């Protein structure tokens, strides 16, 4: 029997778990990346590989220990080495003596036959294509609910009256969504989640700063890899808007003409006119858009040695000056000490707050 696992990327595992179970597989839920995950990844990965590579490798090794024999992940194309991670991971794992299946999904419209073959392989319950399609659709429905709930926490956390209340409720509602199996249950869990979050006592008069978070997808989506930056910023009174959610990313990847993608690349055009791999172009585009929408600042997250983000960081110094929007960059690697990041974020928020106050002073009408 297939014992399936997949990389842990934020809350997406909740939706993948349901999908894989409906296709008749036993699922080994990947544990939240911890120090042990990182230790395992660092020990067996090439030294120069990036943080997502190491965390994923560590996760695979942990889940293999827990009994997983099939690793499901996504591939990719274009000039970022992450497109080859599945193959390299598989070799390293084999060299370590583990016999596992690696199922790496490529963009389905580019490789339709390959896609169907892999779906068949994972279809342990021998569902009809129609039923598989329905299961994927329902998984997508759940993922959208999860993303929307997370978006709502970004709005509520900076306004909460009791520190930590939002994170506590958020952990609880993820369990509700995890237990929901039918459309009706998912919708019900979603509405209850929204209600529970909206019931958190909030301070409506607090001065809230708005910060966009841009950068590489993995370190953006997995809080364990970015030292829970969204929570830290939220606790400092900052409402964050993250440039990437898994549902949005998937939509953009299936459809090159998606509205969000076109707008973002249009905004980046005069700075980086072509795809440079990863999310380099998107990072610049989103910064321009956030500036135009009146955001107070932007935080860029990048794995150490990530070329696309290094390129965009260099470009962003000029974007930042032209649009008068402060940008703070973090390169993430194995460090688990939080002090460095906390210091920089606190100073950054100080800067944004003073800037906003100065602006409100010159235009007092805005405050009233």
């Amino acid at each position, binding site marked *: 029997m297939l014992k399936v696992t997949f990389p842990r990327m934020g809350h997406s595992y909740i939706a993948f778990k349901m999908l894989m179970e409906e296709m008749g597989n036993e699922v080994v839920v990947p544990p939240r990346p911890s120090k042990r995950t990182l230790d395992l990844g660092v020990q067996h990965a090439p030294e120069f590989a990036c943080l997502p590579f190491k965390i994923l490798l560590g996760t695979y090794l942990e889940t293999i220990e827990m009994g997983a024999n099939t690793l499901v992940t996504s591939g990719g194309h274009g000039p970022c080495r992450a497109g080859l991670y599945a193959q390299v991971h598989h070799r390293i794992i084999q060299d370590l003596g583990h016999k596992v299946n690696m199922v790496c999904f490529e963009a389905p419209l580019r490789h339709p036959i390959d896609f169907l073959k892999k779906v068949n392989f994972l279809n342990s319950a021998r569902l009809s294509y129609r039923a598989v399609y329905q299961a994927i659709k329902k998984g997508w429905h759940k993922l959208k609910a999860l993303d929307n709930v997370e978006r709502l926490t970004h709005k509520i956390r900076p306004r909460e009256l009791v520190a930590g209340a939002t994170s506590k409720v958020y952990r609880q509602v993820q369990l509700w969504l995890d237990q929901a199996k039918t459309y009706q249950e998912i919708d019900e869990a979603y509405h209850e989640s929204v209600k529970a979050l909206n019931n958190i006592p909030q301070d409506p008069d607090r001065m809230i700063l708005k910060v966009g978070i841009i950068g590489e997808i993995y370190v953006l989506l997995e809080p364990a890899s970015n030292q829970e930056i969204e929570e830290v910023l939220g606790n400092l009174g900052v409402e964050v808007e993250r440039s990437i959610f898994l549902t949005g990313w998937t939509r953009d990847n299936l459809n090159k003409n998606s509205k969000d993608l076109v707008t973002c690349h249009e905004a980046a055009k005069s700075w980086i006119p072509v795809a440079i791999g990863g999310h380099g172009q998107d990072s610049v585009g989103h910064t321009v858009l956030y500036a135009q929408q009146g955001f107070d600042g932007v935080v860029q997250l990048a794995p150490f040695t990530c070329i696309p983000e290094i390129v965009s960081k260099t470009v962003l110094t000029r974007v930042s000056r032209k649009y008068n929007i402060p940008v703070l960059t973090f390169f993430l690697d194995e460090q688990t000490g939080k002090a460095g990041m906390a*210091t920089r974020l606190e100073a950054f928020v*100080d800067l944004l707050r003073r800037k906003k106050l100065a602006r409100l002073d010159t235009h007092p009408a805005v405050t009233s």
Partner: protein
Amino acid sequence: MKAYLGIDVGSVSTNIVIVTEDNEVITSLYLRTRGRPIEALQAGLKEAAAGIPSDLQIAGVGTTGSGRFLAGVMVGADVIKNEITAHAVAASLVQPNVQTVLEIGGQDSKIIILRNGVVTDFAMNTVCAAGTGSFLDQQAARLGIPIQEFGRLALKSTSSVRIAGRCTVFAESDMIHKQQMGHRVEDIINGLCEALVRNYLNNVGKGKEILPPILFQGGVAANEGIKAAFERALGFDVQIPRYYNVMGALGAAQLAKEEMSRGGKTRFKGFDVTSLSYKTRSFECNSCSNLCEIVEVLENEAIIGRWGSRCGKWDIADL
């Protein structure tokens, strides 16, 4: 007489400043942390207490630096602030028109851009401590030259020797190579100063508009070779404030003063804390897979501070 206490517990040095209501600095101490922030702070406070007039009353305390939380719970701070804000505040106090602050400390380096007295931009070194005070210390020790002499020697250089500046390992092997080739020590040291400045401007200073007046502060500002290299690279005068090596503490004292001007009574526990026993201990929380490292601070066996958990479960925020 009312005065304010500023404490900056950094990786390399622990600095203590006492400033009067009229901004007169009556105590300015620079002590080595040597990896033991509690002992350094207690020794510093003892020395500070011995040197102040008996009628002096501490009306507010501010802490900053990477050890600011530890120092904050030990002495009872009224304000705990990051070192970027503290340095900017101190620079504005000394030179109200300042537009650029270059700061190089023991483990980090930063640049702060101010316009009209407000911080508009800053950057700090990201992943590597290349080009900070610790490395200079190390190299001075390796060459057997007291760190105080290091910069002066660079000024005696007559020909330029190029040293790699991006990484301390590269820099050190370059220096050893050049020394074995027969280059003079003065020229090598000067080459190192230029390498550090080049790296600083290209890393933390990248894309920043550096305009005068420029203040250079932090322990490394004592190094004349680096100051000269900055002036050559920037084409502007670089000023070194009188209390260049305790500017963080000075800023913390000023922030305490601002905080207390809003009213309220200081939380300062008094200089007696130097005679209490402080201990820290840590453990790993096993409640979830985060395995957070929790640190506890004990004052005479009673827990006065605890932090490190991501969920906040263990935190004691008695501040």
